[in-house]
């Protein structure tokens, strides 16, 4: 049986990834999504997925990382954005619908959405 989306394709992808690596190192954007029980129950997995989709659509280079509970369970899903060594901004109660605006404002325009922020630095 031919294997769809074979691992061979991944080898090709590797070459492309190496080319873009230098660019990414200099911009260094990291997006962290809380993935404790609290986050998962509040929809954090779907939010993470929406972030991945949005990054791809807008062709934004960033690493998406999941972490455990940080203790702000009532504000889940939590998303922290860190850019190029600057202190992170943590947004609370992010849902799939808010993701496009969040990335548009914070990553594309460079504006922090104050009313969604729950913690800085």
């Amino acid at each position, binding site marked *: *049986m031919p294997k*769809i*989306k074979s*691992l061979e*394709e*991944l*080898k090709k*992808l*590797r070459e*492309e*990834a*190496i080319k*873009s*690596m230098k660019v990414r190192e200099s911009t260094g954007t990291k997006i*962290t*999504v809380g*993935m*404790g*029980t609290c986050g*998962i*129950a509040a929809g*954090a*997995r*779907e939010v*993470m*997925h929406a972030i*991945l989709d949005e*990054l*791809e659509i807008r062709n934004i*280079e*960033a*690493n*998406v*990382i*999941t*972490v*455990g*509970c*940080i*203790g702000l*369970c009532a504000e889940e899903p939590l998303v922290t954005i860190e850019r190029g060594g600057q202190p992170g901004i943590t947004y609370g109660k992010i849902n799939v619908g808010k993701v496009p605006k969040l990335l548009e404002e914070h990553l594309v325009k460079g504006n922090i959405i104050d009313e969604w922020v729950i913690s800085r630095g």
Partner: protein
Amino acid sequence: MREISLHILDAVQNSIEADANKIYIKIREDYNQDKLIIKIEDNGKGMTPEFLKDVLDPFKTTRKTRHVGLGLPLFSAAAKNCSGDFKIDSKKGEGTKITATFQHSHIDRAPLGDMVGTILAILCSDKELDLYYNHQVNNKKFEFNTQEIKKILGNISLVNINVIKWLESYLKNNFKELYKNGGVLIAKN
């Protein structure tokens, strides 16, 4: 939780918190025996027999961020509500193994749901780990492990956005294949 895959993600987060760097997920769906069996095994720090005894009590938790741990009690309740069973074996210093069994056709059984999303969320963990995934539907099987992927990627990170998007479509296609014809392998002429 709305999906069993969310319970799985939650249980794996426990493994990660327990410093596991090898995580095994085994899923067996057997329509004839009407069973869905989920096994999650890790090489984390494990639990003492005393802690294990009370592990399904929501007020016994290793969390430092709050005093109630609901993950495993919810998983256990989900299985037991579906004529199923929930077992945890653990040895201090060796690891933990969870087995959840569900009646596959039970009216209250949540769908397995978005396993691709769960796998991606695990792979994006901030901790370095390897995932071994083995999913069987009747007599069809899909296996996947990050060791193999990392070998191909070399010095490229697994959480590179291009790699993650590729993995997403790789997993989606393989799951589609797994469930085709009700998980029954049709012999080719």
